[in-house]
């Protein structure tokens, strides 16, 4: 197909660089510099998609990121396809493929289009009202809805592109590179402020750059020509960084902004390769200048959504910037002067303008005379009551508007056209401003929300601040910049400005038709197919809050966040409910301003970089010996070491047996280690643990339980007294950081008088835990000089020794119930000492075991794991660990809570052992426990917290929390599962070696 709507060449388009692309399977041509939208329009294609609910044909409406209709799927046939891209933002490149969304089987024949004729059945809240009953039908409805609706399809494979993050700190950030932004950035940078200027488009200059109005002059030049020179000079300014194709997505408090820099989307396929596609800029700016401009408003009238109906400003941009005519028979429909500029632009380029429909009675702007001179017919005090043309507008019907603007009179005039430009005035783009937390104020006179106040850290300039006329913009900008940047003069203090002034505007949020509103389709939100009717219906049904109306009608809830129609929605609500718009407030504009890809958000933090992980010094050995790993917090811990052909169950059974029968070795390096020093260290431990610490002899170890102030178990571990004022505390692997934080908190805020210093040394030491009846022999081979007799080195004691000149701390402590030694060495010797143990243990078949076996062995002994057998609702009494709670100590963290009426209740859930009637059945952890099977509703007594098949006892064992469990010893209970009820008996929590004899075996 030929480009039959390309007009006189534009300096922004490179006509020597012809580019082919595909849309809906057909090949078209455009030029370098075109967007997909401008290239399609050049090929006389307006119909690009179907609407969400009614599947009405929709065309390109705008020329920017506010586009509600022209939403396309990029690379539709690839599994890395991208949905919901705006045709108005996609710069074409060789090889681009795009397709319409929301239509099936094709954009020209769409089955869902039937919804359009069924529209009376699809009012506001339709989905809520209809598809909820009967409930059992939901699945059928869902299939239907999902098949016929939906916004594009998501990619189904991993994104191969590279994304990046960058932190930027600057003195001044300027958002938007229109005339205001450029002047602001230039003056900031010239005053030695590190300045960053961002714009979402690929060109600087905003709308002024393609301005053709001869009445707008700066220093006697056309404003556009003057600005071009300014832009050319920007590159010579130091301290100024400029980024185009960069859209600010979010503006958070304290001038923290997120922006997406698009680096390769406009490049040819082969040039994209191996380059960073998009970069998320995390900007912390001392000062922010918002120069985000304004968005043109549509007009709300019957059938205002047909392909070929566009914003008047977009038509101007397509003609002046892209060199494309949007139609051959153009009509404009307006309530203000700006449509006349667009009309004149077209006329001057030889494009036919049939007529201008103006709802005002007249205007005395200078430009009206030029329109009259051009012979373009103006229909004053008229409104469009209907449009025709299914896939492209073909004609409009107009009627005279009554004086009060609520009805139409006289006879209907029909005018044919293929493009209709609508101009409803301008809405300052205050989205980012409100995201920052700043408040808006409503200007009743001009019917716009504008920033309430500038601050020391933020100003809004140009049209986003409510200044629309050139002289207003520059004068106010000059004044604001001096205050904001604290400078005496700017380089446009003596600028000469000439411009026409907007005269009058007549605002009617919902334009009347000769038909009753029930029979019309005045769209307010094009993307979500919400009409003025829906809004009125919501109000009739009692909705008042703008936030509720929004959700009920889905107005403003599309991917465009209702950038075009939100003001009209507010206006219609205000008019209908008889309140002032200023009192109604606005809905909240939320980030992102335009959609972001997930890739940009996560940046490089994908795959193995998703989170940091920690590995122990023995990690290489574990990998070499085929360990399977388990994530514990950020740690990668050895889980089990399967031998050839072994399942996890088999490996764990073998490891567990070996550890009790001969010797096992566990990498315990991940346990949290906190070095505690100071003259009050003993007193400090007294306060944080439930048991007493003052009398712990130097060289001895003690198990401690730490509570929260609410009396619930928080952490546990063994602490060793190294010298008079020096302890080393161990914590659970997952709790290390939190325990340190909690202890610091008490030290700094509650007990600053204590002389205690805490240092995390978790990463400084590696720990090999040697266990089993042969562990003493193995250790003896490694350190022959050390007397390992029970008299010299008893259970719960510590020795500092040298192994090959390496200082080691050896604790004789046990988490398995077996004779056991924990060898702590400086981290860099971790693997060496591990190897030494393995070598020395060979003759005893020393068996490395992982966390799973560790859990099994401790469960045989009934030792708790904080976080598995406890869940923040268990006191030490609930755990049947009364023995560890000191009665003598006046106070410790959580003590008072153990005497609250609730924690003293006898029938709280308590930790017990469970044995299954059939010793081969292993309970599921988390399974519920009941006492009655036939009772309804059945009372849940508790649940299984730990469960294993014990190879050493040759039967299934479990720990559980059960209501009043302490008094249920020997009681028969049930664990009801999906297919069976398992009979269990409440037992002691210690299943193995109840007398603790093996510790000294």
């Amino acid at each position, binding site marked *: 197909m030929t480009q039959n709507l390309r007009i006189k060449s534009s300096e922004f388009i490179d006509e020597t660089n012809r580019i082919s692309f595909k849309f809906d399977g057909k090949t078209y041509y455009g030029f370098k510099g075109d967007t997909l939208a401008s290239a399609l329009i050049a090929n006389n294609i307006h119909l690009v998609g179907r609407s969400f609910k009614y599947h009405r044909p929709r065309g390109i409406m705008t020329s920017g990121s506010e586009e509600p209709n022209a939403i396309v799927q990029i690379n539709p046939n690839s599994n890395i396809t991208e949905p919901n891209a705006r045709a108005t933002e996609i710069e074409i490149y060789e090889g681009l493929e795009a397709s319409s969304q929301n239509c099936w089987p094709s954009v020209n024949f769409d089955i869902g289009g039937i919804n359009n004729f069924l529209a009376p059945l699809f009012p506001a809240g339709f989905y809520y009202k209809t598809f909820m009953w009967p409930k059992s039908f939901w699945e059928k409805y869902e299939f239907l809805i999902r098949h016929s609706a939906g916004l594009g399809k998501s990619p189904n494979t991993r994104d191969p592109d590279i994304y990046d993050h960058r932190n930027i700190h600057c003195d001044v950030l300027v958002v938007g590179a229109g005339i205001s932004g450029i002047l602001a950035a230039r003056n900031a940078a010239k005053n030695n402020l590190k300045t960053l200027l961002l714009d979402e488009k690929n060109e600087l200059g905003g709308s002024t750059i393609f301005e053709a109005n001869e009445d707008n002059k700066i220093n006697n030049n056309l404003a556009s020509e003057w600005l071009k020179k300014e832009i050319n000079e920007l590159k010579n300014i130091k301290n100024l960084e400029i980024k185009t194709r960069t859209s600010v997505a979010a503006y*958070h*408090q*304290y*001038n*923290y902004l997120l922006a997406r820099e698009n680096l390769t989307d406009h490049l040819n396929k082969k040039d994209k390769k191996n380059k960073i596609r998009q970069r998320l800029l995390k900007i*912390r700016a001392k000062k922010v200048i918002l120069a985000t401009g304004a968005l043109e408003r549509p007009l709300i009238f019957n059938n205002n959504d047909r392909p070929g109906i566009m914003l008047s400003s977009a038509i101007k941009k397509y003609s002046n910037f892209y060199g494309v005519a949007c139609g051959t028979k153009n009509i404009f429909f307006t309530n203000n002067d700006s449509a006349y500029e667009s009309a004149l632009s077209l006329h001057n380029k030889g494009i036919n303008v049939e007529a201008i429909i103006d709802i005002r009675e007249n205007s005395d702007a200078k430009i009206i005379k030029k329109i009259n001179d051009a012979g373009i017919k103006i229909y004053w005090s008229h409104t469009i009551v209907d449009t025709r043309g299914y896939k492209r507008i073909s004609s409009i019907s107009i009627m005279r508007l009554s004086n009060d603007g609520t009805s139409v009179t006289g006879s209907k005039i029909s005018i044919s056209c293929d493009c209709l430009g609508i101009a409803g005035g301008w809405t300052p783009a205050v989205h980012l401003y409100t995201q920052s*937390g700043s408040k808006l104020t409503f200007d009743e006179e001009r019917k716009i929300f504008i920033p309430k106040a500038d601050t020391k850290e933020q100003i809004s300039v140009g049209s986003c601040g409510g200044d629309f006329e050139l002289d207003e913009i520059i004068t106010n900008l000059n004044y604001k910049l001096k205050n904001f940047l604290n400078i005496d003069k700017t380089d446009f203090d003596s600028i000469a400005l000439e411009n026409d002034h907007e005269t009058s505007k007549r605002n009617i949020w919902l334009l009347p038709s000769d038909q009753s509103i029930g029979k019309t389709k005045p769209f307010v939100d094009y993307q979500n197919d919400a009409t003025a009717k829906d809004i009125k219906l919501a109000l009739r049904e009692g909705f008042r809050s703008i936030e509720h109306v929004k959700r009920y009608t889905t107005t403003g809830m599309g991917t465009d966040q209702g950038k075009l129609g939100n003001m009209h929605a507010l206006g219609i609500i205000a008019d209908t409910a008889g309140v002032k718009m200023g009192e109604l407030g606005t809905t909240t504009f939320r980030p992102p301003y335009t959609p972001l890809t997930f890739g940009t958000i996560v940046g490089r933090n994908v795959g193995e970089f998703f989170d940091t992980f920690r590995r122990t010094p023995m990690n290489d050995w574990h990998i070499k010996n085929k360990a399977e790993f388990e994530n514990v917090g950020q740690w990668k811990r050895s889980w089990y070491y399967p031998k050839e052909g072994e399942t996890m169950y088999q490996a764990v059974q073998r490891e567990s047996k070996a550890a009790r029968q001969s010797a096992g070795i566990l990498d315990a390096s991940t346990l949290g280690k906190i070095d505690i020093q100071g003259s009050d260290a003993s007193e400090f431990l007294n306060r944080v643990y439930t048991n007493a610490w003052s009398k712990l002899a130097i060289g001895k170890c003690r198990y401690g339980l730490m509570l929260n*102030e*609410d009396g619930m178990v928080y952490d546990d571990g063994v602490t060793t007294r190294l010298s008079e004022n020096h302890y080393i505390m161990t914590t659970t692997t997952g709790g290390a950081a939190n325990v340190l*934080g909690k202890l*610091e*908190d008490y030290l*700094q*805020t*509650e007990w*600053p008088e204590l002389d205690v210093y805490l240092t995390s040394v978790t990463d400084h030491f590696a720990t090999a835990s040697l266990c089993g009846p042969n562990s003493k022999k193995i250790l003896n081979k490694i350190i022959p000089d050390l007397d390992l007799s029970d008299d010299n080195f008893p259970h719960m004691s510590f020795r500092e020794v040298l192994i090959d000149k390496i200082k080691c701390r050896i604790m004789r402590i046990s988490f398995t119930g077996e004779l056991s030694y924990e060898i702590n060495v400086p981290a860099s010797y971790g693997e060496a000492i591990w190897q030494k143990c393995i070598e020395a243990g060979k003759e005893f078949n020393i068996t490395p075991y992982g966390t799973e076996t560790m859990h099994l062995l401790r469960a045989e002994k009934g030792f708790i794991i904080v976080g598995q057998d406890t869940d923040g609702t268990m006191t030490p009494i609930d755990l049947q660990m009364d023995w560890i709670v000191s009665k003598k100590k*006046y*106070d410790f963290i959580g*003590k*008072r*809570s153990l*005497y*609250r*009426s609730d924690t003293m209740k006898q029938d709280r859930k308590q930790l017990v052992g469970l044995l299954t009637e059939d010793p081969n059945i292993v309970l599921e952890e988390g399974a519920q426990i009941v006492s009655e099977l036939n009772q309804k509703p059945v009372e849940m007594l508790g649940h299984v917290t730990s469960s294993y098949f014990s190879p050493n006892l040759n039967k299934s064992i479990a720990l559980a929390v059960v209501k009043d469990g302490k008094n249920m010893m020997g009681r028969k209970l049930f664990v009801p599962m999906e297919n069976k009820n398992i009979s269990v008996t409440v037992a002691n929590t210690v299943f193995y070696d109840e007398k603790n004899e093996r510790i000294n075996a």
Partner: protein
Amino acid sequence: MFLINCPYCGERDQQEFKAGGEAHIERPKQPTELSDDEWAEYLFMRKNIKGVQFERWNHAHGCRKWFNMARDTSNDEIKAIYKIGEKPPTQ
């Protein structure tokens, strides 16, 4: 994302900090003397003010120091930052 002026390190991004709830709630010196209600008052009852609220913050990924902050919860403006043990600002 706040910019928090740690009294020991200077201005840092919020992600280096951890919020620690309401400030100036002193742990009772003699908990055993308190009734259940009095203890519960200390343990559970926290204000949730719209307006200026005094809070504890910890520079968890920095100097690890705790300090206090007066923050307006309605607009997140940080009114003051002061060290533990110092009196809250009156203005």
